[in-house]
């Protein structure tokens, strides 16, 4: 990319055009007292060669899952990525991060998004899915906002289980602040949403109840029972956030009465990439489609009766409805959603089930072996999918640090999110882990006790 600086002459012309004397005049509105007058704390400029060397050194500090064996999860998972995914993504016809501005010209892109929506609908059991959103956290927040549109005349309470990803809850809290809605966190008992507490809190003023399944600790929530509690509460909508891989084995949330099924789609063909960009998926019932956030692609026929794809239901979106749009997210994570689509097509029904089964079985193999160690035990008894909490006798952060020397990423220290869980380690096992890797992990854990 070429770098074209403004010349002094350019600057003077621009200043003249807007009628100010100097660049400083542009900041006249900022009070003197709050202006920074010191020297910026920046190193001296580098030459290109020096800069490349410097950046390479910095990049060398990163740990990569090519080199390290990853048992970290907590919302982002080290599943196998078939190389075909990247090859298809990199095709110039597809290679854009954005929904095209002349969408109907890009039939291939629209078709891929339509297929993404279809596959998410099938996995979740819901009628309709959107073209994707930013990430898991934004889908949870959007579900709460959608509940506010769906529940007529009423309510300002959003109930969310403590076992939902802590970062999702933080994002939700940020969004609800402006609306002056109340966010009520439902405590857990033995790692699972406390149903008595939920029953007590779920009332006529409740817009939605949000749970995650498998939850943040990897455990399966009693989704059917929670669905019944939500239904009995009155008008409230039931939101279930889930790991799409788990849906190859678990009953679709739609069958437990979910009104909105959302979640993080990174597991589907997207690399960990240091935390993003990822994609969120968002599904609901077709009767609610006009209240849904995000883009939706529809299938239709042209004047000659030939199948074609279009952006549909755009009247919900910002460029048409402006302030009264259903969401301020009017794009999607197109490239990430494409990766998910390619991944799901490659895996197929049987392949996805295989991924889920292997993850489940390997996670249980690891959990049993760790539980048998002195100084380590499984914290919870509830059934789990591919992730579980290990109770340690010393801070989990220290154990993580210690196993790093052996090129093992032991898991996520739960003290980061729950101060009282300093000695708890969240361990994820995907289909990628071999028996040797798991055995090595278990023996290194034993050595670190």
């Amino acid at each position, binding site marked *: 990319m070429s770098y074209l600086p403004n010349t002094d002459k350019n600057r003077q012309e621009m200043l003249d055009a807007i009628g100010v004397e100097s660049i400083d005049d542009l900041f006249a509105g900022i009070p003197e007292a709050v202006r920074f007058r010191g020297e910026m704390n920046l190193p001296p400029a580098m030459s290109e060669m020096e800069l490349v060397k410097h950046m390479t050194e910095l990049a060398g500090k990163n740990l990569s899952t090519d080199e390290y064996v990853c048992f970290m999860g907590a919302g982002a998972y080290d599943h196998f990525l078939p190389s075909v995914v990247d090859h298809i993504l990199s095709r110039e016809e597809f290679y854009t991060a954005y929904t095209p501005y002349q969408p109907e010209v890009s039939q291939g892109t629209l078709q891929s998004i339509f297929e993404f929506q279809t596959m998410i609908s099938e996995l979740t059991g819901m009628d309709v899915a959107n073209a994707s959103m930013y990430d898991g956290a934004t889908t949870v927040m959007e579900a709460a906002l959608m509940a506010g549109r769906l529940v*007529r*005349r009423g309510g300002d309470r959003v109930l969310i289980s403590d076992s939902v990803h802590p970062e999702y809850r933080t994002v939700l809290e940020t969004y609800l602040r402006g609306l002056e809605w109340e966010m009520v966190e439902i405590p857990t008992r033995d790692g699972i949403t406390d149903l008595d507490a939920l029953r007590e809190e779920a009332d006529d003023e409740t817009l939605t109840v949000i749970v995650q399944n498998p939850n943040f600790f990897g455990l399966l929530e009693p989704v059917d029972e929670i669905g019944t509690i939500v239904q009995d509460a009155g008008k409230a909508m039931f939101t279930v956030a889930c790991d799409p891989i788990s849906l190859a084995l678990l009953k679709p949330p739609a069958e437990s009465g979910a009104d909105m099924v959302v979640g993080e789609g990174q597991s589907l063909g997207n690399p960990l990439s240091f935390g993003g960009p990822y994609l969120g998926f968002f599904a609901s019932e077709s009767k609610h489609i*006009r209240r849904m956030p995000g883009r939706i692609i529809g299938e239709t026929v042209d004047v000659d009766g030939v199948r074609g794809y279009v952006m549909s239901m755009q*009247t919900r979106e910002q460029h*048409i*409805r402006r302030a*009264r749009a259903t969401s301020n997210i009017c794009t999607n994570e197109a490239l990430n959603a494409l990766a998910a689509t390619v991944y799901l097509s490659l895996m197929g029904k049987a392949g996805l089930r295989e991924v889920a089964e292997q993850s489940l079985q390997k996670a249980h193999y690891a959990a049993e072996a760790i539980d048998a160690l002195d100084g380590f035990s499984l914290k919870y008894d509830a059934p789990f999918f591919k992730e579980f909490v290990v109770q340690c006798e010393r801070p989990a952060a220290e154990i993580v640090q210690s196993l790093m020397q052996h090129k093992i990423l032991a898991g996520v220290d739960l003290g980061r999110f729950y101060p009282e869980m300093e000695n708890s380690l969240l361990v994820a096992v995907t289909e990628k882990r071999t028996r040797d890797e798991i055995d090595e992990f278990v023996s290194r854990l034993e050595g670190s006790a």
Partner: protein
Amino acid sequence: MSAMYPEDLLYAENHEWIRVENGTGTIGITDYAQDQLGDLVFVELPEEGDEFGQGDPFGVIESVKAVADFYMPVGGEIIEVNEELLDAPEIISEDPYDEGWIIKVKIADDGELDALMNSEDYQATLD
């Protein structure tokens, strides 16, 4: 042309009409408005008991080419909504002043009617 804008109605700038009878107002959109919107596909209606001020948006109408809000020509409480429209919004196009009515309101303040136009004045705004 006068048949398109009945004399017994009052009209708002935003192309709503209101028929006033015994403190109750029946509200719809004008022939001009439905014609501009084209083929109607969806309406979103308020609920009985909802209260709105004059000029507040109370619902949404969506056609194949546009979406628009309905605005209250006068403030008041919704006492009835035309639920037929939920399944068949095209009724508004076919019969905007009769079968295509949208809501009935209990008018909060008769004085607000003074701000509305008669048929002739409304038609003048369309030229």
